[in-house]
């Protein structure tokens, strides 16, 4: 079996919802049935066949070639051990709610990448937008609750919003309010943007530098925490490119005191 490849013929004329193009969505469909799937979001309702050249036959190994920031919901809700590769950019909600498997985007992703995911591995070669690893929608009670997200570039605002569990690595940096309202899990980055950890209850932000913390984070000492060593090892095996981001010695900021105040920001300390 060869990887199932969807090659974009031209820039899509509208936003597309590609959530059906997962092993679960494609099970039992032959080439013609796949081509007939509607992926458009307007009344024009373009199909897979209208927009993509399809080749290959292995739904466990899906490739999108020719990216676009209009390719929404790629691999949303992915389960099992399937692999999806996007050669180029992805749109909204890539890997949102994924429970397992692996998604790799070679370019950048729009907002809510990996939002609400509970398992699996999401890798983005470029940047990712707001709410990466955060909440998927208004009213959602949990952001990322498991699995690993690795963004080589920067992520936007409110990365890890309401995060509960799991690991979010934004190698280059984050926008404002990283880890907002988080209640667990770990965010690792070189640089936190403004007001990180807004209303965080629990959870850990690890960074080399950070933007303005405001009055509701309280310095709580410098430590060589065994936990950081543990984390460094875990990252060295799972996200080798980010291994250097974990300091041996860190200043611990405790907060957000405006909320429960049991979260922490661990910043490299000399």
């Amino acid at each position, binding site marked *: 079996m060869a990887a199932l490849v969807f090659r974009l013929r031209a820039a899509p004329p509208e936003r597309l919802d590609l959530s059906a193009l997962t092993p679960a969505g494609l099970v039992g469909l032959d080439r013609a049935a796949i081509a007939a799937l509607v992926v458009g979001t307007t009344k024009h309702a373009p199909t897979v066949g209208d927009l993509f050249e399809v080749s290959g036959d292995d739904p466990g190994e899906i490739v999108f070639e020719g990216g676009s920031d209009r390719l929404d919901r790629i691999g949303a809700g992915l389960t099992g051990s399937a692999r999806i590769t996007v050669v180029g950019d992805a749109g909204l909600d890539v890997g949102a709610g994924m429970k397992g498997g692996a998604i790799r985007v070679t370019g950048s992703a729009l907002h809510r990448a990996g939002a609400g995911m509970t398992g699996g591995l999401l890798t983005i070669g470029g940047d990712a937008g707001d709410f990466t690893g955060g909440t998927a*929608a*208004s*009213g*959602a*009670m949990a952001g990322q609750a498991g699995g690993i997200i690795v963004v080589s570039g920067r992520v936007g605002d409110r990365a890890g919003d309401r995060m509960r569990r799991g690991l979010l690595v934004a190698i280059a940096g984050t926008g404002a309010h990283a880890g907002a309202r988080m209640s667990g899990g770990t965010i690792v980055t070189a640089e936190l943007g403004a007001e990180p950890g807004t209303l965080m209850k629990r959870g850990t932000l690890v960074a080399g530098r950070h933007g303005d913390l405001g009055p509701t984070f309280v310095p709580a000492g410098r430590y060589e925490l065994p936990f950081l060593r543990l984390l460094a090892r875990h990252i060295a095996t799972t996200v080798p490119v980010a291994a250097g981001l974990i300091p041996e010695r860190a200043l611990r900021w405790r907060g957000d005191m405006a909320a429960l105040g049991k979260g922490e920001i661990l910043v490299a300390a000399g």
Partner: protein
Amino acid sequence: MLIRLAGGRVIDPVQGLDAVGDLYVRDGRIVAAPEPGEAVDETHDCRGRIVMAGAIDVHSHIAGGNVTLARLLLPELHVNEAPSPDGMPFAHARWSSWEIGRLYAEMGFTTVIEPALAPTHALQTHLELADLPVIDKGALTVVGNDDLLLKLLRERESRDAVRDAVAHALAASRGLGLKVINAGGAPAFKSNLRAFSFDDEVPHYGLTSRRIVTGLLDAAAEIGVPHPLHVHCNNLGVPGATETVRATMAGAEGRPIHLAHIQFYAYEEDPAGLFRSGAETIAAALAAHPNVSVDVGQVMFGPTVTISLDIMKQYSGHPHASPKKWALVDGDAEGGGIVPIDYRAKSWVNQLQWAIGLELFLLSPDPWRCLMTTDHPNGGPFTSYPEILHLLMDRGERERWIARMPEEAKRRCGLAALEREYTLDEVAIMTRAAPARLLGLADRGHLKPGAVADIAVYDDLADRAAMFRAARLVLKDGRVAVRDGRCTGWIFGRTHALKPGYDAAMTREVETYLTDRYGVGAKAFAVPDEAFGERHVFKVEPCSH
């Protein structure tokens, strides 16, 4: 146009009718059998089917500010997935007014009453009701916690003044009846009381809940409100609330009174301070007070949301919110509270609530006085009515559910021993004839000639849930609204309202009060016909005298 529903088993307890025969409809009304030879324009084959009047729900939160706040609070519980059919926009927009009308109609319901019409938000409530397709609507005007009324009572103004103030509120808000919610509880909570019973005093007012309720009973009688005063008692959900209910029943002193969602009060306290079923106590009290009617407020399992103007209760319930978010409005008079809840089959507490509701139905001395509700959505959605009917009509089905009950719940109630099964006739009373009679809507709930042609036809299935979930045919005002369990298109019913008179002096007093309170006058709270464009929304119902 003459329509014949041919050969169905027609059940109409009002006429004592349970027989196979034809039913005729002309111009939106039920008519007597035509002369031989008269042409029938349309015939619906009802052979082997059950023909009843359209069902009526006296207590379902389907419109108004708090219903819409619940929509805002819980987007994750009503994610839209299906497109709506052509010609029926928003029919599948979940939790929308449009979907509510469709779903009610598809179960054979043709009249539904919103039980919490806050006078300050009457226009919004009526605008929402007007967007509920197919069914007829009505709403109960909430009084009893508003400062104007409390002040009149406190200052021992004449019964006439109290009556006029209530009549004004009813007329201005275009309600079909009167409702009081934890009388005095809202101002008490605003003064930071966290518990409030029938004989407790509202701080600063020197008034008890009993005074407010009895004052409203007097006013309702004098205005001639056909529907008995609809009372949401104090102490909802509190173990020992059976005593509150008994006190309230006795306090009515023989005057007609309706106690809402009684299941939530049928809780007795055991020596450990935990609750156990008080259904027998409630049933006995109901038997002893023929002036009292109730609706059950059955709990069914699954995630839902509690919506109530009882802000004291809603605040105290917020730690149980699931998911963990909630809203509370310290509004004018009551306001409202929205607390999501997940009734879990694994929880003995929730199982006991479920069992107590069924006990109340099965111990009820009189189907004319014990109505089916879930207090939608508080005990569960109205779409669970078919399951409830199945549980009431089929002991075997009940036993299958009881087998899954935790022992802790089983030994705190007597459900397992109850053998009663509701008959179709009793169902027709409980869901048609009785609510119509209690609402004072004489033209419905039965199939006598002259009645509105709101008719539901069901397949006679052993699976009563399947039977009542999807009516084979529903006529609304003589027009086909549902066929084979599916709504056929948008038609619109009316909103029924009273139009009581009152002394002109009250108009001035209210105007002064509103201007003092809000800085705007009564017009800002009015529900004028013009607000509905060219839609003809309201139908005025007469007061009793």
